[in-house]
């Protein structure tokens, strides 16, 4: 299952647009919805990504898969999975905070995001400084 670039862009674009529209409606007090409802596009998008990732990782368990060509790959997939979970944790904590379910400090909400951004920056930095351009 490999989507073309246009399909992936369209998917991202659609969910981002939906989320932004709902966010604007909520912020302008036009829609008296719960914050968890506003984040529905984010939940759907994350679920799609997680399912795609898990299906790909599960593909390794198929019979006849040659494990020699993918030790690097599996590390990368694991990092992506962790990144997705961190993002999900951040969004959930943010919703809970905005909805005032809990009286926690904003620091705890942002810890998953910081971990995610640090990881992303390490990956980007590695790509800038160590990988030879082709």
């Amino acid at each position, binding site marked *: 299952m490999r989507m073309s670039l246009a399909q992936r862009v369209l998917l991202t674009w659609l969910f981002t647009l939906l989320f932004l529209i709902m966010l604007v409606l909520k912020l*302008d007090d036009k829609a008296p919805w719960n914050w968890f409802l506003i984040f529905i596009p984010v939940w759907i998008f994350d679920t799609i990504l997680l399912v795609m990732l898990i299906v790909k990782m599960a593909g390794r368990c198929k019979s006849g898969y040659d494990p020699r060509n993918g030790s690097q790959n599996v590390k990368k997939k694991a990092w992506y999975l962790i990144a997705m979970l961190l993002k999900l944790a951040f969004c959930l904590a943010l919703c809970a905070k905005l909805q005032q379910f809990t009286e926690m400090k904003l620091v705890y909400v942002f810890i998953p995001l910081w971990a995610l951004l*640090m990881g992303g*920056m390490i990956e980007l930095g590695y790509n800038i400084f160590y990988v030879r351009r082709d």
Partner: protein
Amino acid sequence: MLFSLRELVQWLGFATFEIFLHVLALLVFSVLLVLKVDSGGAELSWWQVFIPFFAADGLSTYFTTIVSVRLFQDGEKRLAVLRLFWILTLLSLKFVFEMLLCQKLVEQTRELWYGLIMSPIFILLQLLMIRACRVN
């Protein structure tokens, strides 16, 4: 994960280093935001909280100018001008959004509604969609 870095660079038109810069700005911004909100907001003004984004925009503009000048000198005039225009459009839309948001947070005026503040982002999304069709 959804996009490889290579596709992102092609699609957004930013160099990897610039993406790195903007992620760093987001990180510093979030730290400042937490400091501002958790401390009751006495020490930091909203303009100070937004400094990382403005700095990243400035640095990115500088970087783009340099790259475009070099491309122009190397004879790739068409590419240089196209790149310059594209990046400047993106950055200026982002900058307008940040300015409006900051102004709203500082003054809390009713006239500046969030639909208006987000409008540069909506334009940005359409532009990115059009560009995605061309990248393929």
